[in-house]
């Protein structure tokens, strides 16, 4: 390198930082504030969960999560998620497809409706189902006459969970599908593909990462939902208690260590979700970026 190049090289970094418009001090302060916030509000509570969970030792931890009521809660949570999440995947894809690929009257209304579960308090989401299907509800007498139990039973839990977690998949997919337009689908159709083939080979692969994000978030929420589920559950131990409800009961009964033991499972789920997401972004980052850019 010649001497003449040196001043240029030295000048370049200085120009870059001034172009970004803030000094080193400001940058350090911003980073410090963000880190402090993360530490205080995210990492510390998370650590507290695991510390509390282990405070009575490994045996107590094991006992807390293998006790029959706890196992029942875990099973119920998994069951509800296993039904609610696939349901929301299918309906979410259908809604996103309709919104992104077709023009129709009332489209904006549909988009607002998709967001409704996010803007309504979960407690109200639960109460709606009690109002509809509870013993005193609109359909209560009819349901009782036919011996169908919805509220304070599995169907109610599933309904409430479906309602609360519905937007995740659709909201991830809609902007992505909209930005993709319909050219790929039209190309596939002119090449002679059947509508099913277009959907499974073109549309779905194009949005698979958005879909995956949506499903991850939807699942995490389905397992962790408290408010709406609490209203419709009736909290019958061993029968209609999901994990979050079980945790609350334990906590209210001053069984802190046991509550945190079960809570650590949910926290673990959150960590796994995060890890999975990060791994996918790292492993398939180019493809994700490409599928979002195009």
């Amino acid at each position, binding site marked *: 390198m010649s001497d003449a190049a040196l001043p240029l090289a030295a000048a370049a970094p200085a120009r870059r930082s001034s172009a970004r418009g803030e000094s080193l001090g400001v940058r350090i302060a911003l980073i410090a504030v963000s880190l402090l916030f993360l530490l205080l509000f995210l990492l510390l509570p998370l650590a507290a969960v695991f510390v509390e969970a282990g405070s009575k030792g490994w045996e107590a931890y094991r006992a807390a999560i293998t006790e029959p009521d706890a196992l029942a809660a875990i099973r119920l949570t998994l069951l509800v998620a296993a039904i609610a999440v696939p349901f929301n995947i299918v309906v979410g894809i259908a809604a996103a497809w309709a919104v992104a690929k077709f023009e129709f009257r009332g489209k904006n209304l549909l988009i607002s409706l998709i967001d409704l579960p996010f803007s309504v308090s979960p407690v109200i989401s639960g109460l709606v189902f009690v109002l509809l299907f509870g013993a005193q509800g609109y359909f209560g007498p009819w349901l009782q006459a036919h011996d169908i139990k919805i509220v304070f039973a599995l169907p109610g839990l599933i309904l409430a969970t479906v309602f609360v977690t519905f937007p995740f998949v659709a909201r991830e997919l809609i902007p992505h599908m909209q930005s993709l337009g319909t050219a790929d689908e039209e190309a596939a159709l*002119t*090449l002679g593909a059947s509508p099913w083939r277009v959907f499974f*080979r073109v549309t779905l692969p194009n949005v698979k990462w958005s879909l995956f994000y949506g499903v991850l978030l939807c699942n995490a929420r389905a397992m962790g939902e408290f408010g709406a589920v609490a209203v419709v559950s009736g909290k019958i131990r061993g029968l209609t208690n999901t994990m979050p409800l079980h945790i609350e009961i334990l906590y209210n009964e001053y069984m802190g260590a046991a509550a945190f033991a079960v809570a650590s499972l949910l926290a673990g789920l959150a960590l796994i979700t995060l890890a999975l997401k990060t791994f996918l972004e790292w492993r398939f980052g180019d493809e994700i970026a490409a599928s979002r850019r195009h």
Partner: protein
Amino acid sequence: MSVAVTIETIEKRFDSFTALRGVSLDIQPGELVALLGPSGSGKTTLLRLIAGLEQADRGRVLFGEADTQELSLRDRRIGFVFQHYALFKTMNVAENIGFGLRSRPRQERPSESEINKRISDLLELVQLPGLEKRYPSQLSGGQRQRVALARALAIEPRVLLLDEPFGALDAKVRKDLRAWLRDLHGRTGHTTVFVTHDQEEALELADRVAILNDGRIEQVGSADDVYDHPATPFVCEFLGEANKLPVKVVGGQAFFGDRPVLGGITQNQGGPASLYVRPQHLRIVDETPLALPGTVEHLRRNGPLRRAEIAVEGLKRRLDVDLASQVAPAIGERVRLRITHGNLFAAA
């Protein structure tokens, strides 16, 4: 294999907006036709109607004798190349090209080995051998273009439709691909319709050019036809630069003011008219009859040509004159211009 396409008085409305107003066009089997027109003139809409991606409000499209109304998209067997290629991002080049063949119903589907053979043949044809495993994001614009074409050709289309095939490419690549496409068409002989708003591209490539304006076809003809004998002022101006002179036709001569500027007019017309003259059809001459005096106001270079802007008394706009091999006049010099060729349209 290739089929004639007949477009009969097609009308297409989008809500209250009329995009096509009675378009008719006959395309011979194996012909290469360009749809040329300004932005928004309805080129893409017409192409999509031929493909069956859009439904006409009136009129019909025939492939050979068959009304396409009754044909499904699959049965139309269209090779459509989209303006932005619409390659499947999640499939590699080979999968993209093989998609159409693999979409066929089982009994019509070629075997895997035949499909793979066809893919490598097509990659050979579009001069991209060995790129089977690449993804679209790993290709240059020109390469994507050719993969899109290979994908469209794979289904052995009866009609090939290209929407601004070179629109997204830089000038140099466009020129190369143009020659290549002409050559490819010569070898494969598909009935081809391609959309462009680049008149040079249309004139160079196509057997015939159809010029669209505001949802109507203004003229259809060979490149020479439409360039030398434009049917309307719009075609004349759209196909290349033209100077416009208000004239009066009397007894086979066109007069600018009281000065005769063009003789030998055989058209059976008289009265006020507009005379369109291309820059290369104006020559600086020494004293002659039928010459227009003017003053050189500006000189500039336009690619290989030098161009003079010459002010003529009684005309608001300066005349553009190509100085092919003549010695350039000086700015301010008074010159005489002779019109060697012009197109006359009755004044509107």
